[in-house]
């Protein structure tokens, strides 16, 4: 187990003068599980792309199986046994499992005809390798995300991978599925196949890694055996500072004030059950839990997208029915979705139009025409207030950077003056600087009397912004904590604890 299969030496890569990787070295042993950890923009995806030959390093060497490359091409990389499993798995939804497994081999062999018998045989052999059974003639579109992931892994094995790189592979998996993925990875290890596991979920890293490498701002800041690492140390290296909290930043909501939102025994069949809580004006209430815990479903139910089918919701003391998004908006509930590109923004439309889309109905004159100039006034105001960096509100939204786009989605909802704002993972994919200012903004909004539900699995984020936390597990509220009463480690343990149950 000491055969070195991959060595990256002093690699640097810059984009438009900005160093994405700065003199980074890395090694990988045969059969080793290496976890690559870092915040967004820390350089880990650049590193993957260099190993897979998508990017060419400005300087440095890549040595795979003893062959040294200055500039690796994707084909050379694959020939050396490097296989990357991207988050979309690169599968064809309309083709069968067997065919998806074999299609790359079919292509690279240059054969013009398809031998179906052979296809099924090869596919079956592939699935046996990782000890899973998925019907070979099922369409990929009929499979769960977890099964697709396993297909992608099998595909990599069939391509005779020696190194499998998984980019955030657990994002869309439930606990149980993550466990079986881990089993598969350990299986690969036994076969001498190495895995580079890219993640920012530290609890998973502690579970699977042989060795952990942490990147920060394009540099490798830590590289050591995973046995000696705890989550707190990793966080320290990831962020570069101890995440200690200044409680004075958090305004305390008035405990006597009447609750803005009261939810009682709310349920949606198959998604969540018996969820009860109260939200006071000025309070930031975190809702956390792992994927599949029902946190997003709860948010969507409160916003009317997939309405709850049992329980009651009271807004400012009045019982309300929320059957549609329009109902939610009538009760001044806003929702900032998780996927800002798909669910939040109109990329080709102007920044200004994106801001006023929620309040367009209020911007008409007596004969129901949109008032000239009204949109500019409103949008300029919000561009200023949220510090969206753009030369003009008339540019399309796609011209903005990730963090600014997230601010734009926030501006859209803030412009409609909500009393209750649901934020679903507001800082996913946002750079560190923007993240801090979005946190600042959340605290400010709360201090002005808004009630905020923050859905997130980013523990430091929750600790920095929330007054109280609700932990959800498998569709139930598992506990409600005051922020003062719980530490990051405890919270992390509580989240991970669920996994112990599920094994």
């Amino acid at each position: 187990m000491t055969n070195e299969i991959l060595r990256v030496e002093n690699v640097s890569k810059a984009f438009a003068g900005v160093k994405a990787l700065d003199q980074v070295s890395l090694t990988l042993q045969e059969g080793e599980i290496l976890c690559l950890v870092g915040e967004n923009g820390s350089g880990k995806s650049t590193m993957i792309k260099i190993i897979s030959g998508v990017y060419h390093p400005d300087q440095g060497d890549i040595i795979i199986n003893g062959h040294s490359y200055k500039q690796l091409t994707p084909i050379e990389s694959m020939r050396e046994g490097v296989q990357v499993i991207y988050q979309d798995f690169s599968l064809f939804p309309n083709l069968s499992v067997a065919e998806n497994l074999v299609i790359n081999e079919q292509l690279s062999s240059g054969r013009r005809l398809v031998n179906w018998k052979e296809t099924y045989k090869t596919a079956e052999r592939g699935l046996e390798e990782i000890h899973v059974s998925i019907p070979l003639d099922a369409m990929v579109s009929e499979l769960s995300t977890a099964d697709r992931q396993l297909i992608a892994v099998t595909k990599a094995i069939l391509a005779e991978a020696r190194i499998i790189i998984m980019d955030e592979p657990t994002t869309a998996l439930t606990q149980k599925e993550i466990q079986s993925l881990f089993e598969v990875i350990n299986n690969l290890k036994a076969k001498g196949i190495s895995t580079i596991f890219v993640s920012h979920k530290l609890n998973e890293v502690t579970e699977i890694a042989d060795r952990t490498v942490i990147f920060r701002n394009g540099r490798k800041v830590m590289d050591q055996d995973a046995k000696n690492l705890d989550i707190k140390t990793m966080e320290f290296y990831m962020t570069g500072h101890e995440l200690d909290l200044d409680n004075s930043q958090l305004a305390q909501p008035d405990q006597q004030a009447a609750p803005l939102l009261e939810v009682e025994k709310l349920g949606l069949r198959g998604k969540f059950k018996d969820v009860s809580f109260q939200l006071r004006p000025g309070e930031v209430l975190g809702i956390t839990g792992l994927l599949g815990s029902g946190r997003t479903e709860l948010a969507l139910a409160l916003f009317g997208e997939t309405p709850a089918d049992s329980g009651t919701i009271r807004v400012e003391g009045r019982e309300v029915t929320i059957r549609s998004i329009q109902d939610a908006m009538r009760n001044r509930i806003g929702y900032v979705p998780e996927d800002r590109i798909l669910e939040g923004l109109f990329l080709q439309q102007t920044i200004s139009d994106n801001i006023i889309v929620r309040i367009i109905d209020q911007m008409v004159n007596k004969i129901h025409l949109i008032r000239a100039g009204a949109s500019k006034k409103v949008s300029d105001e919000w561009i200023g207030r949220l510090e969206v960096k753009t030369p003009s509100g008339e540019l399309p939204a796609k011209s903005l950077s990730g963090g600014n786009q997230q601010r734009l989605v926030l501006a859209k909802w803030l412009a409609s003056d909500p009393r209750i704002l649901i934020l679903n993972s507001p800082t996913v994919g946002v750079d560190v600087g923007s993240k801090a200012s979005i946190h600042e903004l959340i605290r400010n909004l709360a201090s002005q009397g808004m009630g905020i539900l923050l859905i997130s699995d980013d523990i430091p984020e929750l600790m920095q912004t929330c007054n109280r936390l609700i932990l959800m597990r498998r569709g139930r509220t598992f506990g409600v904590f005051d922020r003062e009463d719980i530490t990051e480690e405890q919270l992390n343990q509580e989240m991970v604890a669920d996994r112990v149950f599920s094994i």
Partner: protein
Amino acid sequence: MLKKIVKSSEFVTFTIIVLLSLIIGIINPAFFSLATVFDVLRASIVVSIMAFGLLLVIIAGGIDISFVAFAALASYGTHMFLLSRGYNGGIFLYYAIACVIGLGAGLLSGLIVTRFNLPIFDVSLAMMTMWYGFIRFFIGSTKNFKLPEGAVGYYSRFLVTVRDPFVGEAGLHFSILYVLIIGVLIHCLLKYTTLGRGIFAMGGNREVAIRSGFNIKGTLLVVFGILGVLSAFAGVTHSFLSRHFEPTLFMTQNLDVIAAVILGGASVTGGKGSVLGTFMGVILIQLINRAMVLTGITVEWQQLMIGLVLAFFISIPAIRDLINKRASRAVEVPEEI
């Protein structure tokens, strides 16, 4: 396995064909005869051949409406050319020249689509308008009934004939063999060649197909080439079966062919479809046409009935989705943690 067959959209089409046949047969027993079968088949020959070509484009994720113009250009162009040369031979030369013209027209569309990254639908719209204009301005604008002597009896060249108590002599035209041969060839292309799987792959997920190393542009060119050739072939066949050549051949029938392919289970968004299904889609439309006459619904109401059947059929997947969405919520929340 059985479950898979029952779930397939080809099975839905097949069931509708059987049910419809039964209903018509019960109302009018004259329906159950070889003569009817021959009649339905004959009416399906030309549409099937075009539909097979179109099927490839639709699986690849595009919609083409210009194939009818390829058919008109190739058949009418060939005819007027050979007529001017005083050709009096058989039908073979017609097919040969027409297929070359069809291939050229198809490749031209394919080249424009791939070279300039344009949507197939937009290009085909332009090409259709252009070709029908071209034919009528540069070649001729009137129907022509003068057939070469070598091909005069073609329309009644039957494989088998039967005596039918209602319609007298009825025959199965031998060009049904073309449908069979072309159908088998296209089926094999789709099922047993890397190229064919590439057509499915690009219709299923174009990005991944490119990433996996499929030659998307080359594949599209082949697809357009085949579309052109098959359309030309259908155009010539139709002209000889109907014993005249016209410059505006099939001009308003492209949507019917698209409808047949869709009825046969192909998906408008690409990645799905089969030769057998397409053939059944064509048969279904012909059957609906005849159902009216045979069940006493007068011919005027035919189109309405076709529309209603189509509306019903296309609503099935959408309604199925709605139901699935509801059902997917019913995953159990465990009672105890």
